[in-house]
């Protein structure tokens, strides 16, 4: 073998200005060029690590404390990651100890808002962006609101908002949760607002802002929008699909597509 194969340069590369899709990659036989193969492997590795990274509870709680916000820790019934991935139903329910813990925190007359931070499918997203988003939300909501301590929820799915909100007697629950990682971003945070949280709420009862991260919607900006959205839901007395927002970034949460799997975080 004394000839190195020519470097693959496809004219299709010129079309990459039209799409983020991985076109014009070149080939050796049917195989991908080494750099292309390793780029993909790296993106997938980041996504896999995000799913299995631990929730940095001390770090998040410490940052909230430093900003003058108290937090409490609870967990779902899922227990560990392997169970969480297999049993979405358990990720939507509170452990008995957590139910007791929340009952102790319930204020006389309940509260206006509980902000929940849950690991979801990307603890990486939560570890990086939840504190900034949460503090921005809390600064943006009406300052006379009675706000519960921030709830840090391990192995939580979106609908865990409902028993948490109910236990604290909250008018509104806002959950910041790690979204299912993609190849382009493994650290997207999602936010789900529920008016009148209680078990039995569906996705149609929630409003959602997704793709919160510096390359998407910046955490501070997302927090301000969410704070305003919470204010509107409270004054109108409802949320979900009936609550439209003039800011196009905020949409009603759609029910998960049925053959689609990305109900994973809900």
């Amino acid at each position, binding site marked *: 073998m004394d000839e190195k194969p020519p470097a*693959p340069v*496809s*004219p*299709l590369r*010129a*079309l*990459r*200005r*039209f*799409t*983020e*899709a*991985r*076109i*014009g*990659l*070149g*080939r050796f*036989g*049917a*195989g*991908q060029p080494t750099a*292309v193969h390793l780029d*993909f*492997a790296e*993106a*997938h590795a980041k*996504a*896999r690590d*995000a*799913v299995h990274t631990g929730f940095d509870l001390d770090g998040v709680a410490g940052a909230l404390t430093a900003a003058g916000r108290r937090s409490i820790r609870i967990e779902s019934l899922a227990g560990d990651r392997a169970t969480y*991935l*297999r*049993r*979405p*139903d358990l990720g939507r329910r509170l452990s008995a100890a957590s139910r007791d813990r929340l009952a102790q925190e319930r204020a006389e007359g309940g509260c206006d808002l509980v902000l929940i931070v849950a690991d979801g*499918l990307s603890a990486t997203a939560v570890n990086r962006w939840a504190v900034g988003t949460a503090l921005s939300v809390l600064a943006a909501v009406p300052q006379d609101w009675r706000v519960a301590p921030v709830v840090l929820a391990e192995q939580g799915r979106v609908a865990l908002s409902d028993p948490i909100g109910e236990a604290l007697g909250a008018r509104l629950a806002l959950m910041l949760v790690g979204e*299912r*990682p*993609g*190849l*382009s971003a*493994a650290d997207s945070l999602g936010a789900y607002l529920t008016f009148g949280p209680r078990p039995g709420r569906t996705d149609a009862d929630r409003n959602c802002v997704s793709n919160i991260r510096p390359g998407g919607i910046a955490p501070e900006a997302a927090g301000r929008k969410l704070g305003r959205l919470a204010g509107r839901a409270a004054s109108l007395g409802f949320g979900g699909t009936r609550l439209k927002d003039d800011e196009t970034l905020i949409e009603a949460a759609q029910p*998960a597509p*049925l*053959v*689609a*799997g*990305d*109900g*994973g975080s809900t």
Partner: protein
Amino acid sequence: MIGCEDLRALLAKASPARSGDFLAELAAQTQEERVRAQRRLAEVTLDEILAAPIVPPEDDEVSRLILDQHDREAFRPIAGWSVGELREWLLSDAATDAGIAALKWALTPEMVAAVSKLMRNQDLIAVARKRRVVTGFRTTIGLAGRLSVRIQPNHPTDDPKGVAASILDGLQFGCGDAVIGINPATDSPDAMIRLLELIETLRLKLGCPVQSCVLAHVTTALSAIERGAPVDLVFQSIAGSEAANRSFGISLAMLAEAHQAALGLNRGTVGRNVMYFETGQGSALSADAHHGVDQQTMEARAYAVARAFDPLLVNTVVGFIGPEYLYDGKEITRAGLEDHFCGKLLGLPMGVDVCYTNHAEADQDDMDNLLTLLGVAGVNFVMGVPGSDDIMLNYQSTSYHDAAYVRDVLSLRAAPEFEAWLSGEGIFDAAGRLAARDDAGALIARAGLLAAA
């Protein structure tokens, strides 16, 4: 005689382990219990299965359809066979392509699901490989020694140039002979018509024998047809119970209406198969419409719906639904082989979206394995997604490279009409393999893509 409830429980407990059946609390609790159920299932006869509908026909139009489809004459010779005996016959040399095909309407989804549960992966491959199901529109799909590929040029905003760029990349890899099929970001007649016209223009400019499909809801396709859009194939996701189909916003009557409307356009040149269906294990459970039936049997019931409408393509989207239904590479692999086997036995032109999400315990190596196994099993078509990365649906499927790989290692060729076009364009060499020189520039120029930019 076995009762309906006993059969339902037996099918579930005999099913190879997967997370969705545990989620539904239907699975065997121990390995030994599973094998015990398989032994009992092996003794159940086919006429017992026919006599014990696992979803009550009075509540479910899919169950009624299954009974209506059943051909008692063709069934008579095998009615007394046990499931174990059916397995042995299928594996034997007596079971030829024509012999299995003759049982198309004698076998019900429940019988086929039952026998699959007694099979190892190699059995599923060996039997499916014997059964060729050939369909046609502008290309002929499913012939022996051929493997077709869907170009899946999705774009998060349906940008026409972005979609066209992905299509050209796929054509340059010899993909597209199954269909050029776009999952639209927006499900509306306007969006659908824009995308259909884009593919139509490309197809005519390039003189390329392909069919197009925009994977919008069947009602969207019907309004596009009413507005005179160039609809080749009508798409719909389907499932194995009336309630699950209702959650998709469809009924059998709606599918029949769409089927007739698409046939009326008469746009095919080599065949009149005008439907494209997608399915996937777990969809009924996720809609809470599984009637206590395990997810693999429910999936086979979806094939009864598909075969009522003579589809060009049926695609089981095997790893898309997530780890709560199929946890890891092993479960995804098993499900892909089962679905392909069951579909083929029921006479369907099966393709498989060999895929996974980032929260499943799976990676590219698992996909390579399943793709290779399906190539051996004679799958009609697979997906071609640029670089495996669907930037609209956010999951990983097989790539144009993967399609070229599996055709190469198994000496599989493209659909004949499309292969002739590829050779004429110099994309394939005389041996029907990708030509050494990459001359995408010529296609790009003829498509007018850069000029229009």
